[in-house]
């Protein structure tokens, strides 16, 4: 672990300034916590609290999840520390009217990747330098070129299996699911006031943690994120049962990319693939 002082110091200054000038009610960033293996979220509400903000290579979380939380929004205008990848989620939230641009101050941090060794998603990150933030602290980092094959390599590994092998694999993985819904609750885009699992009339998704219910839940989750998921990987990180949820999300992202030339969250102006159509969309496999 190494604290990135080139970012941490200007970050602390910027946050303290925003707070002391009353431009934001809270700055959501990362803080240091001796006990945990990563830098957890920190909510600075007073200028002096900004001193506890930090940026290092253990800032795993996607803080944009808090933008949809009522108890955070009630505080007032939010300043939020975003890595380039987190910004994609913010863009989707903006597009879906979850937050208004004027209600949030985006503090961008250039990020050369998280984790040691680098997290999988960071090694194929194409958004190392956040675009369109109100404030960017620190200097831009080098952005390697990533091609589509690298971008979706995890999904490709599973795609390479036969259909039977895939069933074998996924029924094993999904059997583990205990339906704690951690994947849902940490997802910045799973902000529904009432999750489909909580609607009981009718109960589309069985809540029992048997494979039947688990498939229904995970299919619904993946499908509700199709064309929206920004592959931040929080679901997989949160899953206490270590189910490779990211691969499913990646597969659907790959599909949207290949089929509709769409990558979620690159702009807040895009139309989600499922809210629009093209008369000439591919339709192979339709009888």
């Amino acid at each position: 672990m190494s604290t990135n002082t080139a970012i941490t110091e200007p970050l602390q200054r910027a946050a303290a300034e925003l707070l002391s000038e009353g431009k934001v009610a809270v700055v959501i960033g990362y803080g240091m916590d001796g006990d945990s293996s990563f830098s957890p979220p920190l909510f600075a509400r007073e200028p002096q609290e900004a001193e506890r903000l930090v940026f290092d290579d253990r800032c795993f979380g996607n803080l944009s999840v808090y933008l949809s939380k009522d108890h955070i929004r009630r505080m007032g205008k939010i300043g939020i520390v975003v890595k380039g990848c987190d910004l994609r989620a913010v863009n989707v939230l903006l597009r879906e009217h979850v937050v208004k641009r004027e209600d949030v101050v985006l503090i961008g941090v250039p990020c050369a990747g998280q984790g040691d060794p680098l997290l999988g998603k960071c090694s194929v990150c194409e958004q190392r330098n956040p675009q369109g933030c109100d404030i960017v602290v620190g200097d831009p980092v080098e952005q390697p070129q990533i091609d589509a094959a690298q971008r979706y390599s995890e999904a490709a590994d599973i795609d390479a299996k036969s259909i039977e092998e895939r069933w074998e694999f996924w029924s094993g993985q999904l059997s583990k699911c205990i339906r704690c819904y951690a994947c849902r609750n940490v997802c910045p885009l799973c902000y529904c006031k009432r999750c489909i699992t909580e609607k009981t009339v009718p109960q589309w998704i069985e809540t029992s943690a048997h494979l039947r219910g688990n498939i229904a839940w995970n299919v619904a989750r993946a499908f509700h994120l199709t064309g929206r998921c920004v592959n931040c990987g929080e679901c997989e990180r949160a899953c206490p049962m270590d189910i490779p949820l990211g691969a499913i999300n990646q597969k659907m992202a790959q599909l949207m990319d290949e089929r509709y030339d769409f990558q979620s969250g690159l702009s807040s102006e895009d139309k989600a693939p499922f809210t629009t159509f093209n008369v000439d969309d591919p339709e192979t496999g339709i009888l």
Partner: protein
Amino acid sequence: MIKLTIDGQQVEVEPGRTILDAAKLAGREIPTLCHHPAVPPAGACRICVVEIVAGGRPGLVPSCAYPAQDGMEIQTCSERVLQSRRMTLQLLLARSPGSEVIQEMAAEHGIKEIPFPKQTGESGDDCIMCGLCVRLCQQIVGASAICFDGRGPDRKVSTPYADRSDVCLGCGACAFVCPTGAIDPAEYCPNPIEKIPNEFNCGLDSRTPIHLPFPQAVPNKPLIDRENCIRFKTGGCGACADICPAGAINYDMTDEFVEEDVGAIIVATGYEIMDPSVYEEYGYGRYPDVVTSLEFERMVSASGPSNGELTRLSNGKPPKSIVFLQCIGSRREKNGKPYCSKICCMYTAKHTILYKHKVHDGQAFVFFMDVRAGGKNYDQFVRRVVKEKQATYLRGRVSKVYARGDKLMVRGADTLSGTQIEIAAEMVVLAPALVPSSGIRDLSQKLRVGYDEHGFLLEAHPKLRPVDTNTAGVFLAGACHSPKDIPESVAQAGAAASKALGLICHTRLSREPTIGIVDESSCNGCFECEGVCAYGAIGPRELTDKKGNLLATVAFINEGLCQGCGACAATCRSKSIEVQGYRDDQLFAAINAIHR
């Protein structure tokens, strides 16, 4: 007001008006050359002289420039006046012997010979040095592109240093006002003057920037074409405002968006004709005498570009033989429109008659696929045309039109006799396919009305609801729906109007109950539903507490617009939209019941 007497007649004019203005009011005609109502007077040509008899300093004055004064007594054709004019005309005739205007004016004044030598060649031209053009260019157009150049006999109207000047706008106003037609702006204008094609006459003639859109337009008022008007191009001119007696011209008026809340919309965007130049074999665009039926219609119209005189565009002579070609692009599966344009058979029959009215000894031929005369008395009309030899009907298609000399050779097949024929025609009239108005797709997307592969708008049901669309409250009339002739269009328009009235005459709207309903307690307000709604039925609704504080913005389905397709319900992740009659729990029960 100023009171004066002109030729013994009392008139009243406003202060500041000239004697010429007063004379007009009195109904006395005074000849003018250098005068133009929009241009400040100069009194240069002295044709307009009148005699002040009393009430001022007696003598001859130019009426166009001399202000009317109270108590004046004016004579407009006293012998003294006429003598002066004759002298002036003699001098003008000597300078510009070729000018028709001067010649006519001189003749009116009984001048046969002149005592001066007529100037010819370099020094003699039609310009009478009145300077109207110069004053116009400087003071009205504001371009100052032309001026007088040289002295004495060398004096002439020219550009500075006689160069082609970028200052010249190419507006052509100088030529327009020149009393003798002496100016050709092309001599000094760097940008050739483009005539503004008259759209209504298919560009067969030109129009001015101020024009009537078409004869009998409603309202029948002229409009300014801002793209071509000098005023809008340079900020100069404004002559029309100066001279409009009603003060009706207001340059500040702009196009504006007008929003109206309406209960129904009738789409009647009509048709356009397809461009037949895509079919090279017919030579349209290549030979001036190949015209479309619409151009022909204008050419034979009394209000058309040639005032109803039918002449060949190539040489201005009446066409002695004419060939009408049917189904240009219509009923053509490949590279065309597969549908029948429906109106061509009948208007072509009419055109043959009109042709015979214009060119009595002319010969008309019609190439047709088959004659579709399905309206009331239509077939009888076509039969009359054939029977009365107004036209020779040939069943078959034309393979090629080409020029030979000043004739157009039309080569085609007569499938009834099974022979190849070639007709030497002087004019060829094409009946191109009808297509929907350009922009219909944008409009249909705005209105959420379907359209077919050709762009014609879709009716709700071909037999049972031919006037309705699938979007409630939007109705169709005329050719936007499919090619239609006048009686059909009128009938459909009437039906559409009745449908619209039937809809809006009630105080409450009744409709199918199958519509979407939003559960506001769980709606996230992401508005993905709005994106999939084909009817624009979904919009935002703000939920507030009792104090008016905004709690949430949620989706709201306009029950008047919703058609109940359920795309929104399938899109809603939180399952906050239910379609009445196809609710989730109903479908769940249906799925469950299958596996009984």
